């Protein structure tokens, strides 16, 4: 047996396409193993389902980092500076000024020499006080020395200051530019741009505005009225690129879903393909072997299942029970157990049933179970291997199709889910092509490599196709 397997493997490697297919499958398996070991499943689900709370510090809809080298342009990375985690460029001092009043001074320095504007600017703050609320003033200093007062306020609780969408700041900035240059910008100048732009005539036109490269500073000055008062800020200048895969509309790292999608797609496809083929084959064997009433009953049930619409039935099951992906797999296998394949296998077995080695088995008194399981089924397995390999791709796509219809597993991150998110998140309208193309590419190479191997196997096991 093992020599036969080795021989078939050698035959398989003589097809260049099959070698490529096998190599890709190996890589995917390696990725799966790496993923399962480094990111535990629960962790992946938690990260994927945590919502925006977990992903506060990542940019929304950011491109993958390698976009920078493709576009020949340094796209900004995210810059995070936190006064509770002191590091380079973060200074915080509190000096006593009088009996109770203290003065707080925070300076956050960072360098910005990217070729594009950041996507968003947020300042998260935490505040501590007993009775009197601290007074806080935030100012922004550009590399050329221009200082802009962002906000003056008395924070009563922890919160966030969303600089990019501050209406007051927006109109103050526009007026400042108008006062400086004497004319009005021809577009909606948001603080995200004005705080980082070169302030000459180029700022007036949306397609000519340039980034001012250099050292920026966010200064926070505060008056603390209680002895225990304190104030901390975290500045997040969101970039336009993140990680190797980018982020989606909920700021999540798409890479997690791409990584975890690999073992899920592979195991889903393989288990479904093998289980469906084995069950259909066994049902076909039983039907052909016993004949009579058993055959009749199985054939009628099969015909009912063939007419039963497969996808709508799945949709109903999923809407009603919201099952997870493995239960879904069970449902799929159950629905397909009596699928059209049963008819083909039955025809095959009807032929085999008359062969002489079965006659011989019968004559030495082998029971039905023994003949079906040991003589009939193993004989057919080699011829069905190609079709099993083919159908792996079909099941991988089925999972993606279910996700596109919005009825996939609600928890698990899969490739199909990313495609669905991107499709309904308007990735194709907004030009966020990486969002659709990354999972699509993985789906493509997965099913293509299985198809390549399947075609080669088909030629090996069914030599009639190899003709002259």
């Amino acid at each position, binding site marked *: 047996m093992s020599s036969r397997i080795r021989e078939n493997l050698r035959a398989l490697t003589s097809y260049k396409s099959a070698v490529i297919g096998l190599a890709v499958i190996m890589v995917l398996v390696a990725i799966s193993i790496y993923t399962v070991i480094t990111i535990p499943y629960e962790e992946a689900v938690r990260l994927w389902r945590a919502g925006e709370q977990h992903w506060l510090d990542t940019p929304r809809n950011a491109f993958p980092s390698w976009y920078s080298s493709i576009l020949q342009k340094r796209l900004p990375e995210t810059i995070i500076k936190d006064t509770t985690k002191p590091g380079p460029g973060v200074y915080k001092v509190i000096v006593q000024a009088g009996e109770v009043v203290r003065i707080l001074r925070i300076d956050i320095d960072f360098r910005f020499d990217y070729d594009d504007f950041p996507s968003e600017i947020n300042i998260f703050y935490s505040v501590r006080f007993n009775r009197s609320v601290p007074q806080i003033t935030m100012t922004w200093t550009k590399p050329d020395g221009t200082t802009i007062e962002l906000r003056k306020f008395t924070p009563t609780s922890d919160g966030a200051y969303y600089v990019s969408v501050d209406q007051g700041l927006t109109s103050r900035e526009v007026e400042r530019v108008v006062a400086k240059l004497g004319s009005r910008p021809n577009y909606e100048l948001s603080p995200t741009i004005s705080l980082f732009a070169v302030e000459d005539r180029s700022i007036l036109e949306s397609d000519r505005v340039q980034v001012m490269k250099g050292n920026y500073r966010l200064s926070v000055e505060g008056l603390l009225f209680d002895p225990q008062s304190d104030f901390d800020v975290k500045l997040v200048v969101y970039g336009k690129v993140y990680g190797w895969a980018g982020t989606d509309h909920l700021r999540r790292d798409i890479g997690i879903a791409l990584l975890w999608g690999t073992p899920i797609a592979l195991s889903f496809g393989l288990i479904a393909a093998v289980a469906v083929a084995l069950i259909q084959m066994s049902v076909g064997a039983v039907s052909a072997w016993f004949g009579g009433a058993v055959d009749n009953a199985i054939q009628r049930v099969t015909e009912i299942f063939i007419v039963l*619409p497969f996808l*709508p039935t799945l949709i109903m099951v999923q809407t009603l029970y919201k099952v997870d992906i493995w239960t879904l797999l069970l449902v799929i296998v159950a629905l397909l157990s009596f699928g059209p394949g049963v008819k083909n296998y039955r025809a095959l077995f009807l032929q085999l049933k008359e062969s002489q080695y079965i006659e011989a088995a019968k004559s030495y008194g082998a029971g039905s179970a023994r003949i079906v399981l040991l003589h009939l089924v193993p004989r057919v397995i080699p011829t069905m291997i190609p079709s099993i390999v083919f159908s792996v791709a079909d099941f991988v796509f089925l999972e993606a199709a279910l996700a596109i219809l919005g009825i996939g597993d609600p928890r698990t991150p899969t490739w199909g889910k990313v495609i669905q998110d991107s499709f309904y998140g308007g990735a*194709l309208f907004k030009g966020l092509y990486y969002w659709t193309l990354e999972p699509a590419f993985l789906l493509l190479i997965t099913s293509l490599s299985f198809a390549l191997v399947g075609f080669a196997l088909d030629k090996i096991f069914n030599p009639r196709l190899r003709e002259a």
Partner: protein
Amino acid sequence: MLSEHANDVVSILRIMKSEVLFRISTSVYQNPAYRTLNETALRNLVNRLYELEIKKLGFDQPFFVRSFNYLRDALTLDLGRSLFLSSDSGSRSVRIIILERLPNTVLLFTTTQLLLFFIGLFGGLYLSRRYGSRIERTVSLLAPFSSLSGWFYGLFLILIFASVLRLLPYGGMVDIPPPTDRFAYALSVLKHMILPVMSWLLAYSFLGIYTRRTFFLIFSSEDYVEVARAKGLPDDLIRRRYILRPTLPPIVTDFSLTLISSWLGAIVTETVFNWPGIGRLFYEAAAFFDTPVIVGLVVIYAYLLAVTVFVLEIVYAVLDPRIRTGVA
């Protein structure tokens, strides 16, 4: 097993009957015309109306008789009323809902399937004669690409032609607002059809050609074809009489089954291209548990399948004399 089944039927019947009772009693008790009647008179009225309704629905008949009633309803496309969905014209009749979507799906998918069928047939025939040529090897090489679904190619086509080139619409069936001119309307529908049709052709035509090629290759190496060649018959005649003729039954089967299944549309492709066809209807009905609509669709499909299989038996006999005379 059988009694269990009968139990199911009985309990479903009980549920339906109690629904009828509920509907009638609420309508009677809420009807201002009956305000003056006392409690007993009202109850009698409800009972009388209930019995009439049960009789009208045929629930008093035995299961066997009711089955024939259902069969008659299904055959006459009297599919009842939907629970939630309604047609664009506002009707709740399942027949009207289905008939409203049907032309859209037939237009898109029957066209596509016909195209695919003939591309496969003639492409396969052509390649089987040019075995080993460059074009034959190219198609064989491209065949694995059919392992990707049609809707998947649809995503790429939308990306290229709608998003980047902005030549064709993202989806839908007609421009919004729809053109009033009939010619412009047809043109707009045609424009919306290009991408979905192309996505299916891209996805399935190579495999279609490839399988037909293999099929014809196997048949053209039969002994009787060799004999015909040896006799020096012209190629054209060999192709028509010795290759196409005996392969006709499976081809006709394929053709008819593809045609009747094409009207069910394709759920995912219609979702991706936002095409208002039967596939979308199937999805909506399944998502809202609108059983009458689902049952209606499945019943029509089942009958069509049965009729087609029956007609095919006759067609086989016409095509293959061995079947006609009963010689194996």
